[in-house]
Every structure is written in C-alpha cells, then in structure tokens.
C-alpha cells in the first residue's frame, strides 16, 4: 500500500513537472487541423462526374486498360455517395459499384452485375481488397472523410519544388484497414494532396501514390488529372487518368440508390 502510494505521488509529480502530454498533442492537433482544412476546401461542390482511364501494369510492363465513369454526390453531415460504372473491359460493361461513405462505422457498398441484373451487397471488411484488380484498394478509392483517420504532423519539407506539410495518418478501423499508417505530403499554399506513402500491417513501405496535373475548377476546387500508384512489393502499378470533370450536373439522391443501379448503362 505504501509502495503503491509512493508510485502514485511520483507519477503525479512527473506529470506536473514534465507536461509531456501537452507537447505531444501539438503535432496531432496540427495534423488534424490540416486534414480539416483540406476537407473544408473540398466541400461545397454538390455533385460531380468524371471519366477515368485505369491503366494497370504488371511487373513485366504488360498493360491493361479499364474505362470508368464516376459520379459523386456530396452528403451534408456524412460521407459522400459515389457510383462507379465500368465501360470496359467489355465483359464487365455496365458493372456498377455503389458506395455510401460514412464518417463513422463501415461504408455501405453494393455491386451491380448486369448479366444477371443482380445487386450484390459487398461485405464492409473488404477495405484492403483490390478494387477491380488494380493497385488501389477499396479504402484508397473511398471518399476521404476526416474522421476515418487520426493525424500527426511530422515536419515541413519541400516536395517537387513546393512547400509541404508532411502529415501521418492512422486508420481508425485498424481491424480491416490494410495499413498501419500513411504518410502524406500536402502543399501549404493550396492544401492539395501531392503524395502518399502507404505502410502495410508489418509497417513496411507497400505503395506510393503520386498526384499530378492539378487543375482548378469553378475557381475553387483542385482536381488532379493523374494519380499514379506503385506497389513496391510486387512491382505492379496503376495509373488513373481523369478527364471531363463536371460539377453541379444536377445529380440527386435518387441517382445513388440500389434501385438506380438497375437503370445504369
């Protein structure tokens, strides 16, 4: 008992004399406020559509291309809704992936298979699984909600000639995520994501994602023309090439329902 109280007093003393907690909090707070600022700058577009080429390359450089359309609807107070439609390869033409991102808890996901006219619910534990054979996993393509990670600012540094914040983020859903952490480079001027290093569950570098060709839309929203993901462990890569960004196209909630999948083309 005596020894216990001595330990208690000692730890109290340590806590008061070295307020380590306070100092350690600062990088976390800074990381979070950077993430919030990115989110704030990305918000308010309403809805958008974009065409995407997904170029898969194996380690021998053989490539295969998928043509995809993406429709996104901003949801106030929760994560975005998105619809991904495949135009090629032709055998999966009309296949559509519907995703409701949630700030908290698992996302809701459905896959529409046009040959059978069947809508399949996808288990939410698939986060780390490959999205249509690409180097992007489901969690990489999902909408970036602030609440899905905790953050820590690491340092500032120059990247590609731009002043950047380097922020680490840690998935909240540790059980299903394929990563222990992600290191992100964000330019200080416009708060755009320029690079992400993904560390696998053994904390070794798994993938690197780089963004290029940022353009400004509606005088406000920055969108990259290209996203390039390299898997360092397999030598495979996936490049996403975006074109024909449109905003405020009049998409509504009813265009993002299980029922709407049946009229996708």
């Amino acid at each position, binding site marked *: 008992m005596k020894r216990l109280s001595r330990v208690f007093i000692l730890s109290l003393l340590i806590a008061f004399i070295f307020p380590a907690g306070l100092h350690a909090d600062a990088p976390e707070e800074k990381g979070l406020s950077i993430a919030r600022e990115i989110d704030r700058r990305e918000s308010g577009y309403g809805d958008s559509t974009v065409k995407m080429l997904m170029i898969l390359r194996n380690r021998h450089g053989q490539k295969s291309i998928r043509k995809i359309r993406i429709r996104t609807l901003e949801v106030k107070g929760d994560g975005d809704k998105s619809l991904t439609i495949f135009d*090629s390869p032709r*055998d999966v033409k009309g296949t559509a992936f519907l995703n409701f991102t949630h700030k908290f808890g698992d996302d809701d996901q459905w896959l529409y298979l046009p040959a059978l006219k069947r809508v399949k619910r996808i288990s939410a534990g698939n986060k780390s699984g490959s999205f249509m054979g690409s180097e992007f996993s489901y969690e990489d393509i999902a909408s970036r909600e602030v609440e899905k990670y905790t953050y820590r600012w690491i340092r500032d540094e120059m990247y590609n000639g731009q002043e950047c914040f380097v922020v680490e983020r840690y998935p909240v859903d540790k059980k299903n995520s394929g990563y222990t952490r992600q290191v992100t480079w964000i330019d200080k001027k416009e708060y755009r994501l320029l690079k992400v290093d993904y560390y696998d569950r053994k904390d070794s570098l798994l993938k690197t994602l780089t963004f290029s060709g940022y353009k400004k839309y509606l005088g406000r929203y920055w969108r990259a023309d290209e996203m390039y993901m390299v898997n360092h462990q397999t030598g495979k890569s996936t490049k996403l090439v975006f074109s024909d960004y449109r905003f405020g196209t009049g998409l509504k909630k009813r265009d993002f329902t299980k029922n709407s999948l049946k009229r996708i083309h």
Partner: protein
Amino acid sequence: MRQLTLFLPIMFVFVCVAFPSRAFAGEISGYVAAEGRYFFNGPLFSGQKRHDASLALQPEYYHQWGSGSSFTFEPFARVDSADPERTHFDIRELNVLWLGDPWELRIGIGKVFWGVTEFVHLVDIINQTDLVENINGEDKLGQPMINLTVPADWGVIDLFVLPYFRERTFPGHKGRLRSGPEIDADRTLYESPAKEHHIDLAIRYSHTIGDWDFGIYNFNGTGREPTLLLRIGPGGNPFLVPYYEQINQTGLDVQAVKGNWLYKLEAIYRTGQGEGFFADAGGFEYTMTNILSSGMDLGLIGEWAYDERGDKATTAFQNDLMLGLRWALNDAASSNLLVGFIQDLDRHSRALKVKGSRRFGDNWLLSLDAWAFLNVSREDIIYSLRDDDYLQLQVAYYF
C-alpha cells in the same frame, strides 16, 4: 412465340412514334460465344447425342435520351450441334424506360432478378428459366411486362403487370441433362383457361436499413415452375407434360452485412400447386480479403435449402446443404473460381459444381462450367441426370 413476333413490330413502331428524334443513335454492345460441352459418360437414353458444341450471340442496342429515359433491345440466339431444342432464339429485352419524378415506368420485354443466395434462386419469379441454357437456373427468358417503380425515402415499391406467360424451355430428345420420359412441351397444360394469356400481377416492397437489405413481395398468376405430369402415349411410351398452375406466392429476401460476414435468407409460401407449402434457403458468405497479402480474396459459403413438400417438391432442393469456395485472384484478367458441393440431407445424392472465368486481352473471356452428379438416389428429381457429369468451356468475344 407468335405473340413475340407480333409484339416486336408494335414495339418498333411505338418507339419510332414516341421518340422520333435521334431514336437510332445509341450504343451497341454484346458478345458472341463458342461453347463445347464434354460429357464424361455415355448417354443414358436412346437418341441422346454424347457431346455438343454451340454458338451463341447476344447483342444489345441501348439508347438514352437527355431526360434519362431509355430504350433497350437485346436479342439472343443459340445454335446447338446436338439438340434442336437448345437451338433457340429469344428476346431477352425490348423495352422503354420512362424516368419520371419520382417514378419509373418500364414497358416491354424485360428482366428482373430477386434473391440473395448463391446456389438456390427461390424467390426469383418474374422471368421464366431458360433451362436449355444451363441447369443452374440463372439464364432467363425475356418477360413481357409493365413495371412501375416508385422509389421513396421509406423504400421502393415495384408493381408488375405481366400480360403474357413464357413456357420453360426443356432439353429435347437428342439433348443431355434431360428427364427420362421426355417432356412434350407441345401438350403443355394450364390451369387457367386463358392459358399463356393470363395476366399475372406482382407487387414488391424493398428497402435498405443500415446493414440490412430486404424485400417482400406477392405474386399472383401462372406458376413459373411446372408440375410434370406422366402420360402414356399410344405406343405405350411414357412422356411428361408440363402443367402450369395458378399460384399465389409470397416471398421474402433478407441480407445483412456484418464486417466480413454476409447473412442471407430467402423464403416463400406458395399456394395453388398442391397443398400450400413453405420453402426457404439461407446461409452465409464469409470473405477473407487480401489473403496472406497476395491480393487474392477467398470466400466461404454455407447455405441450406428446405422445401416443406419433401419428396413431392418440384425442385431438387428439398433438404440440401451447400458448401462453396469462392476464389478471386484480383488480377488484371479478373480470374475467379467457384467450387460448390451440394449434399442432400434426406438421401445420399450429392453434386459438385465448378465455375470460373478468366479474361484474355481486353475482349476475350474464357469460362468454365462443370457439374458432377454423385451417388444420385433413385427417388431424386435429378436421377435422370446421374450420368450427365459434364465440363463446359466457353470462349466469348465481347464487343
């Protein structure tokens, strides 16, 4: 078929009149496929050809107007080397979809799928099974329909008026995977005096609440699953006649997702086909993603199907356990394989099913489909298939 040939030009004229401008500037897609079926054992019945090869074509024309309304035309044809009954033509889709606010109206020939389970498709009832295509019951004939869909925040209501009935297709005299006494579809019987012109009705309510997807419906009209009546011909030859009763069927399908688990349930209650009966199918699918960091997914499926009619059931799944393994490589070729095992719990019958596909280049798809029927009991509805173990390979070009 005569109905269809009449329906086709009417539909055509209708579309031209209703949507005169740019009615023909749509997109064309589809596939052409060559298929071979290798049967491991010689045929059981005289007249049956051992193997077969066939060609199939399924193009699709689709046009969407600025309003979001659309027109779809999807014919299908197969030419088979062995069985003239498997050489067939069908219109899978020929319909116009009006997109109103907040409703959708589809008029014409269409296709609708309901259900959640992998092995048994119990609640699926709108479209007739195109059984000559595949015994898995997943190929369907086009169904003439008027379908009104009203989506709301509290769920989706679907109303169906089905003015024309499609008979199930059955393999013919020369075909494998058929019943012992042959089915004489020319003598098809109906309970309704209106025969195939009986107007069937269905209403369905479906909704998603959190992790739960569910649907409940009532169907009233000509049963899609015929009772096969045994008749004796003038020469003393037995044959089967399909008899389509007027039924009422209430169905429920539920799916819940919890982490890596998917839970599934389908249940029906049908009256009008003998005594009223209850049947269900349910189970789970557990998916392991990115196994051993290989990028591959492995799914484990366990399902159980039950039919209160027991031996009198018109399906093979009166009390059966099904186990499956779904393997997705997640490679550029979208390689995947499903292995299924079915065990009859009342008898010693079992079956093995293998299904897989792989893409070559951007446009070619190679698919494999195999069935083995093991130790089939004499009382089993699939007893006549006991020697029909087969391996099917299909090469398709998608455009």
